[in-house]
């Protein structure tokens, strides 16, 4: 109860602190463009795509009756929720990307391919969150997965594709999607799957 009260207060403080535009302006600043080496967008996009395909494969193979397979199905839910949410944010806030407009306050100006929130940051956070929540307490090394959203987020800012707050909000959207998918009674997509997929391809064939 005390912990919950503290968390609530902390949340209020964070909300109050970030609600002012000056705070946002303090955080957002243009960095020198760097898309060389590991910051090349195709590298982290390829990594995310590979992990997403791997996760789908793992979910199909394991099915929903094992801890790993069930978590993978929750990971799929989480990514889908994050994708829909980020699209909704982008269409609502229509913030221009830094490379298109150097003013971080350029909200409601972009017509397509908008900046807020970062889809890649949200996707990477949504990808790892269910695994961190499921396995973190048993295997603390799993927390290292948090490096992925950090890497992707920094990459997006360095590519001048996103403002810093886009990335922070993207992490929040991805993290919340992962938390929601993890705490649900049953994974959404798995519920729609027939027996053959539910038990996993390793058992059905």
């Amino acid at each position, binding site marked *: 109860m005390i912990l919950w009260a503290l968390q609530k207060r902390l949340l209020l403080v964070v909300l109050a602190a970030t609600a002012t535009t000056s705070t946002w302006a303090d955080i957002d600043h243009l960095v020198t463009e760097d898309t060389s080496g590991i910051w090349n967008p195709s590298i982290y996009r390829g990594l995310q795509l590979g992990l997403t395909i791997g996760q789908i494969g793992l979910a199909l193979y394991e099915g*929903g*009756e*094992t*801890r790993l*397979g*069930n978590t993978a199905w929750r990971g799929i839910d989480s990514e889908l929720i994050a994708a829909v949410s980020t699209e909704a944010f982008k269409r609502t806030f229509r913030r221009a990307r830094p490379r298109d407009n150097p003013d971080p306050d350029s909200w409601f100006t972009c017509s397509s391919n908008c900046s807020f929130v970062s889809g890649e940051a949200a996707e990477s956070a949504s990808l790892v969150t269910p695994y961190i929540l499921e396995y973190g307490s048993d295997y603390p090394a799993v927390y290292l997965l948090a490096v992925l959203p950090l890497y992707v987020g920094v990459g997006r800012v360095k590519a001048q594709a996103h403002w810093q707050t886009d990335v922070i909000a993207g992490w929040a959207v991805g993290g919340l999607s992962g938390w929601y998918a993890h705490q649900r*009674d*049953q994974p959404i997509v798995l*519920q*729609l799957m*027939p*027996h*053959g997929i*539910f*038990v996993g391809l390793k058992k*059905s064939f």
Partner: protein
Amino acid sequence: MARRPERGTTRLWRPVGLSNSLHLIALAFLAAACAASTSQMTSLPKQGTAGDVVVLFRVAADEDGKPVPAILSPSPRWKWRLQVNVGPTSHALNTGRTFTAGQLDATAQEAGWAFLTLPPGTYQLAFAAYRTRFAMPGAQGGALGFGQSQGAELAVPRDAGLLYVGTFGFTCQRLNRWWGYAERECTALEIRDEEALAREVAVASLGRFGALRTELASTR
């Protein structure tokens, strides 16, 4: 009175009538009341509170003739778990109102034990699970393979603090239809008397509610 839109203009939103608002408020109150009543049923009564009775029970299952773990706890979530539904005996239990029963310690959870806190009266208790078909009289089916068993009738006496109503044993078979939604079909529910085991659980976790009394539930 709601203003009519001018000719040739598009009305952005319809005026929300008083009756719609009242319906929404009533629904919100109903949802809140349902949540509150469920949480009351799954929490142990406070010491010194007179009236409510802790109803202890266990579930067990056989699948294709072999005993399989049957749990009433919310985790592990990748295993087959049963929820409960409880209500008056006067009408069928709505499958949309199933919930997780009250939880005891981890050992008791693993063995299939759980409890409900109920005021004295007569109730029916049913069990429900995802991807499970209950082929028994009075059973109900929901969407995507969600099923609810027949109800068992139980009487909660006024003078009891802690009541054991039986071990609910399901006889099930595994289903293997590739396109099917049900993973298992449970065809029989038997209520067994495991009073000795119930006493052990009562002593370990529920000692403060007084002596255990046994009044087995019966299938309807």
